[in-house]
């Protein structure tokens, strides 16, 4: 049979964001894959050098449309470290609450995208329907569904009133029931198993050599979680498990994420229960003393790293962002050869790509 070239992207129904994947196939079998990103490169790293530190909070929120909260958390932590500020405990708890809500909705979004890629529209619709519960909660707390503007340098902008706390508790309980339903559904459904088990196997060596992070790495046997390995905000005082699996296929990535949602729910409930009083933020000067700092946070997709260099002015000298999707993108072209063309959808969707994040 002759070789055919299958272009996937920059525009393709499989991709929610533009990237270009070119597959070479013989019949239905992939023999090679190459990738090009940069279609949503916005030059944020250059742009931030022309904005003040305060303006940059809002700029970095817009690196990503899904994990916006964790970006500002990482950025604010970096600037606070340079300033030598300690944020009030209440702010640390609220940051964690928003981050975990974000993780829940990001994981559900992923489940929906995966289900749609393997042609299971029903799970897609159910997942996105239940994701609305979390988005509504985030809107109730911050006023925004996607960009929350919750973090400011020195603390947070939003508080959680006792009514909101009660609402959260109630809604999260409803949500937990829905998640049990999903767990059972995915446990039992054979057609989902057939499309995800033993598909897109990623070994622990690949995880290590490409520096894959987050749930994708944890489903291949890696047990690293920034929240546990280098706790930030209020994570040191919260109890949670680091979920990991060893199968390394799309199915175990789904399992790890579903379990992580349950852990995040538990963290949210702990935060609501233990939420300390006090101020929401401390004052922060506009000028940042010279210095440099590296901060890491656990974004929904894994380790997010910010490097901030200050030259003592109001504007940063250099900020470097590395999002967890980038190593995953590198590894994908090595996962695809040898697969059926139909599995490309499962692997690509199962990789939980956030292309805008990777392009910046």
């Amino acid at each position, binding site marked *: 049979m002759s070789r055919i070239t299958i272009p996937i992207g920059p525009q393709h129904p499989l991709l929610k964001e533009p990237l270009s994947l070119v597959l070479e196939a013989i019949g239905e079998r992939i023999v090679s894959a190459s990738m*090009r*990103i*940069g279609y949503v*490169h916005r*030059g944020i*790293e*250059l742009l931030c050098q022309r904005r003040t530190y305060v303006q940059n909070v809002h700029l970095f929120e817009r690196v990503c449309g899904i994990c916006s909260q964790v970006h500002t958390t990482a950025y604010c932590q970096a600037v606070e*470290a*340079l300033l030598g500020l300690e944020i009030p405990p209440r702010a640390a708890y609220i940051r964690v609450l928003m981050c975990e809500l974000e993780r829940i909705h990001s994981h559900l979004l992923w489940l929906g995208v995966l289900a749609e890629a393997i042609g299971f529209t029903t799970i897609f619709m159910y997942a996105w329907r239940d994701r609305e519960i979390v988005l509504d909660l985030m809107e109730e707390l911050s006023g925004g569904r996607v960009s929350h503007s919750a973090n400011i340098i020195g603390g947070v902008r939003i508080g959680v009133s006792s009514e909101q706390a009660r609402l959260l508790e109630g809604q999260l309980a409803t949500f937990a029931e829905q998640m049990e339903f999903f767990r059972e559904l995915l446990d039992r459904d054979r057609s989902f198993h057939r499309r995800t088990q033993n598909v897109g196997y990623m070994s622990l060596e690949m995880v*290590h*050599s*490409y*520096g894959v*992070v987050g749930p994708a790495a944890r489903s291949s046997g890696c047990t*690293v979680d920034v929240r546990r*390995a*280098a706790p930030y905000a209020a994570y040191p005082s919260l109890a949670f498990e680091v979920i990991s699996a060893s199968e390394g296929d799309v199915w175990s990535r789904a399992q790890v994420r579903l379990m992580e949602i349950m852990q995040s729910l538990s963290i949210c409930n702990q935060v609501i229960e233990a939420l300390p009083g006090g101020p929401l933020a401390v004052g922060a000067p506009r000028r940042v003393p010279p*210095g*440099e*700092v*590296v*901060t*890491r946070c656990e974004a929904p997709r894994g*380790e997010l*790293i910010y*490097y901030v*260099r200050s030259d003592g002015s109001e504007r940063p*000298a*250099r900020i*470097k962002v*590395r999002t967890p999707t*980038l*190593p995953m*993108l*590198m590894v994908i072209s090595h996962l695809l050869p040898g697969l059926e063309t139909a599995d490309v959808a499962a692997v690509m969707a199962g990789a939980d790509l956030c292309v805008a994040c990777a*392009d*910046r």
Partner: protein
Amino acid sequence: MMDMDRISDALQRSCEDNSIRLREGLGGELFADVPPGKLVVAVRAILQEGHFHHLSTISGLDSGQELEVLYHFWSGRGVTLRVRCPKSRASLPTLAGLIPAADWYEREVHELLGIEFAGHPDLSPLLLPDDWDAPPPLLSREDAQ
């Protein structure tokens, strides 16, 4: 800070001429200034040190007089290797053979700052358009003109 001591020892041992200078930065991050010639040796030392360190990313920046490239490693605690190179001779050895993850990170530094990575398999644009003909965007303005 047990790990930190071990990693500093490993780095110091990798270069016997004491050319690596170590400093603990904010948040317990270990910053190590490494001369370009010693980069590969230092990276080997980090990779061979018991605890697994993965390469988080490589950042490049233009500090005015020279270019700095920072290699951020992490294993619970961060280790950042800093390599400085003059703008006139902006070239470093590639790590792509040693750490596959370095491939794209070096491509990015290459296109944003114009640093050459000797021995890199493919330095084609990653983020910028194929037909980008302006100078590398993260170089400071005076140099670009």
